[in-house]
């Protein structure tokens, strides 16, 4: 029913809070302003970590869905993890798009540009919004898990195709700062530290939220089962006493003919 023991979860929660506060301090005061972009560049310490968490979350959804589909590892835990992770992923994709838009306005002069990475992220957002819509359709848990797992894998398999097609279509985005192999991390010192701190803080936040969402999903399922059991019990208790139809039949046998 739970991913982590309560003590671990509490420790994780506190670690997340500490890391986020440290990130805020470093991001707003610790790191120097960018030589060209000035203070606007500080949005990077949120934008890049949220994008990272979004990708991580969708990766986890894909792995959990595959584990659910694989007969030997099939368990409801994977379905719940997949659903919880996708919800966090959609939230963080939306945050990435919004933060990127806020950053793009002062730096590029526009809220939105039809650049490859932006378009891919937007398509990613819609892919998983569809997945969440599918998950929300009421169905038997097993049927829903199967449908959702297959849909998650289709979406995941589609991501590289979307990426390459959009990449060929157009490219304008600035090069990635840390992961670009040709530039060999042209961001250094406190700025690099802050960025890594951001990645750490948001990863902790992701794990914490995943645990909480997982617990909620388990409780929801429990409640549904409980309500169903109660309804059945009530129905069975009601069947013991004769209803008006059976009574009239027993009093007047001709009526039933």
């Amino acid at each position, binding site marked *: 029913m739970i991913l982590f023991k309560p003590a671990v979860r509490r420790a994780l929660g506190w670690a997340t809070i500490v890391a986020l506060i440290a990130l805020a301090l470093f991001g707003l005061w610790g790191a120097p302003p960018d030589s060209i972009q000035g203070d606007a560049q500080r949005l990077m310490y949120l934008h890049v970590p949220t994008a990272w968490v979004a990708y991580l979350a969708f990766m986890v959804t894909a792995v959990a869905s595959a584990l659910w589909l694989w007969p030997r590892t099939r368990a409801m835990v994977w379905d719940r993890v997949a659903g919880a992770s996708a919800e966090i992923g959609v939230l963080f994709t939306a945050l990435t798009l919004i933060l990127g838009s806020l950053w793009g306005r002062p730096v590029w002069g526009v809220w939105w540009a039809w650049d490859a990475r932006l378009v891919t992220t937007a398509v990613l957002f819609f*892919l998983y919004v569809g997945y969440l819509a*599918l998950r929300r359709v009421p*169905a038997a848990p097993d049927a829903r898990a199967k449908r959702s797992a*297959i*849909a998650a894998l289709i*979406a995941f398999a*589609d991501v590289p195709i*979307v990426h390459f097609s959009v990449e060929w279509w157009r490219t304008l985005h600035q090069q990635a700062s840390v992961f670009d192999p040709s530039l060999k991390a042209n961001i250094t010192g406190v700025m690099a530290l802050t960025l890594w701190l951001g990645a750490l803080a948001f990863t902790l936040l992701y794990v914490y939220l995943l645990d909480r969402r997982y617990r909620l999903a388990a409780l929801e399922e429990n409640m549904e089962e409980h309500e169903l059991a109660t309804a059945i019990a009530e129905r069975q208790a009601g069947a013991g006493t004769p209803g008006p139809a059976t009574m009239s039949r027993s009093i007047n046998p001709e009526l039933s003919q």
Partner: protein
Amino acid sequence: MNLIQEASLMAGKDLRIEARSRVTIRQIIPFGLITLVLFAFALDPDRGILARVAPGLFWITILLALLLAISRAYSIESANGASDALRLSGLDPSAIFLGKAAAIAVELALLEVVLTVGVIVLFNVSVASVGFLILAALVATIGLASIGTLYGVLASGLRVRETLVPVLLLPVAAPILLGATRAWEIGIDGSISDGWPWIGILFVSTLLFTAIGMLSFGSLLEES
């Protein structure tokens, strides 16, 4: 019976129903044509905009018509317990998938022929390389039919099927729309050496969607 025979049996059944009910001819094709006319209302026909954006408008129309075709392909299975009969038929689920996809592809191809004539006449487009256009359309159509059939069965049996399919399908089909549109722009221009990456994208997506469909159709059909 082997896979191909079973698949053609399935496709034959769907196309026979189609030939008798004429939903494609009486409803889907007129829908496509009126959409082309509406595009001319929305975009000024006098400034040559229509000719420039014709490939995009064409493929958007096909994508919308695909939604109707999927809905139709699964509404014929939901009547009279036909989906139970399908499950009991003993046909290989992969063959059922291929057959249904093939039937949708044939209907779409028919619509594409009519709409191409429509685009050439109404939007005043002249095509330089017809062969390239046909190649791109062929691969894109099979890909769209595959992914449509897959999401159709995924959502079949759900009460929200008709609203759920578009939200699932359109983002996944985005690369096909992109590839087919760019390929058609290039085919109309005639500089086809630039067009092969797009044919590649279309080919890879079609292969991927068909493979996933063949693998997962059986277990999805059980739930429908």
